[in-house]
């Protein structure tokens, strides 16, 4: 008997996308560290426009290793991981339900919450694996180039990408069990992700957004903070707490609601339309 068969299956389902993202992360890490020595002299006097300062996080200059790595890697790689988390989470709930494949798992003697938990575990493990496996690329490249930043700090920043990705994994999961189709779940989750990212990046330059910048999760997961000050444990714990709350909420909703088949799906859409109509004045 295989242990955690649904987790293993979930990891297998999303392994291609995870490998593609990991290879991108490794390639970008190698490229960033390789070009830094030839660029940092010319970047020394470069004044980054205000509109782009958000990408530097807490770093003062793009010419420093911290600023360079924040702008070139830690400003956008988390976005890729978060997008992966949302896509994978919605596909394992709303996606499998719409296709009818969820029936196959739910007809077995395992509680719905276990199905959900095993799926989450699989995706969460892939996210952690992608982050951790990208670290050796930094470590090895540093052996050949002059990049004055300790491995521990880089590892800290790499690990710092995991909690925010897990938080959006929880959001995708929640959207997947609430909304009637995968498309609507994706729209809502991606909408929130993009809004949060825009607020974070433009908030430093746009006056109107500066006051709400702290509401963005990307602000609290800023890679430069981890590179400069180490792992922000209190922030990590908050992210983990939110992720756990999302998972519990998703499990409670998933336990209680009807599971539709491809036959009954149109009825659920009708139900959703009625809910929307009911909210109109």
């Amino acid at each position: 008997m295989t242990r955690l068969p649904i987790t293993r299956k979930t990891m297998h389902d999303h392994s291609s996308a995870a490998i593609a993202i990991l290879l991108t992360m490794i390639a970008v890490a190698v490229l960033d560290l390789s070009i830094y020595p030839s660029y940092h002299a010319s970047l020394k006097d470069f004044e980054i426009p205000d509109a782009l300062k958000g990408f530097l996080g807490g770093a003062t200059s793009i010419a420093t290793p911290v600023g360079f790595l924040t702008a070139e890697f830690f400003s956008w790689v988390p976005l890729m991981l978060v997008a992966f988390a949302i896509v994978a989470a919605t596909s394992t709930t709303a996606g499998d339900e719409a296709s009818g494949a969820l029936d196959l798992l739910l007809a077995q003697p395992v509680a719905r919450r276990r199905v959900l938990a095993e799926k989450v575990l699989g995706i969460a493990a892939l996210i952690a694996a992608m982050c951790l496996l990208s670290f050796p690329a930094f470590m090895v490249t540093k052996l050949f180039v002059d990049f004055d930043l300790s491995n521990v700090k880089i590892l800290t920043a790499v690990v710092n990408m995991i909690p925010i990705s897990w938080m959006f994994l929880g959001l995708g999961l929640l959207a997947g069990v609430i909304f009637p189709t995968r498309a609507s779940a994706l729209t809502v989750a991606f909408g929130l992700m993009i809004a949060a990212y825009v607020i974070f990046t433009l908030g430093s330059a746009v006056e109107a957004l500066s006051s709400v910048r702290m509401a963005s999760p990307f602000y609290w997961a800023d890679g430069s903070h981890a590179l400069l000050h180490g792992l922000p444990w209190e922030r990590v714990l908050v992210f983990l707490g939110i992720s756990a709350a999302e998972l519990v909420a998703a499990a409670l909703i998933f336990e209680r609601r009807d599971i539709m088949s491809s036959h009954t799906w149109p009825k659920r859409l009708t139900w959703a339309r009625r809910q929307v109509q009911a909210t109109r004045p």
Partner: protein
Amino acid sequence: MNVTVLPWRAHDSAVWQAATPGAVHYASPEPGAARERGLMSDEPLPVPISMRGLTKVFDEQRAVDGLTLDLRGGEVFGFLGPNGAGKSTTIRMLLGFIRPTSGSASIHGLDCTRQATAVHALTGYLAGEVHLFPHLTGRAHTELVTSLRGVHDPEPAEELAARLDLDLTRKAGAYSKGNRQKLGIVMALIGAPPVLLLDEPTSGLDPIIQHRVWEILRERAARGTTILFSSHVLGEVEQVCDRVGVLRDGRLVTVEPVADWRAHQKRRIEVTFAGALPAPGALDVMGVREVARHGPTVDLEIGDDVDALIKALANYNVLDLRTYQPTLEDLLLGYYRQEAT
């Protein structure tokens, strides 16, 4: 309450034992034999499948309306009805996938909504449309189900696949509809669950494999498995089932043993004459009724006894004679007529 727990494979899980405190447990899928061997308590056995006023309303539409029905141990029950009659919705309520709007359903005494996980340990399910994971092989599917059901021996699944001529090494994405259906059947039978809920199990299968599936189901029923078998093919239900229930617009129109069912079913016979046609009503002998005539052909409706008709036809020059089994539509029309009168 003194309870004897001697589980068979499908019950061999902590889930089943934890979820059913105080329930009377079967020692084998053959309650009668188990009772004789003294392996069970003296309390009445829970009905394998029981529905009481089961109702589901979707968006003001009553998909299932006040269904009350008990299935006996080892019975193959044919659930007949056109598409949209409520067959699949009923099965999904039995699995706890859908919560009833009102009423209740239980399997071996376990509430299908509140104790769904324990119900699943006793139930093999085949969906009306089998959806698989396209990137997994057939064997990966059976291994997944085997693992989730806590079954340790993969051999029976392999044997079943061999009986159905199913290649488990291929990826499910490359399977034809027939092969998907075969894999769905194999997965439903893994762990020999004492209850099978099969939604149109032979849909998309060729006639030879259909017969093998019927054979497998009869074997399971002989070992005490209770089978709820939905279909819209009358002939299939007649071949396999002990009792038949007809569902229309979510309501159970009739429930009767297949033998009784056959007795009052009318077949249709088309007789084409070479010469003069019989006078209207001339063929209305013993259980035969003329329903239409077009050109040289007369349509007749007939019960079990064809002898009187053959003798009546001997007086005419018959060019061709064709018999038709009634379709589900014919049957439902019959019930509409009955209700109207």
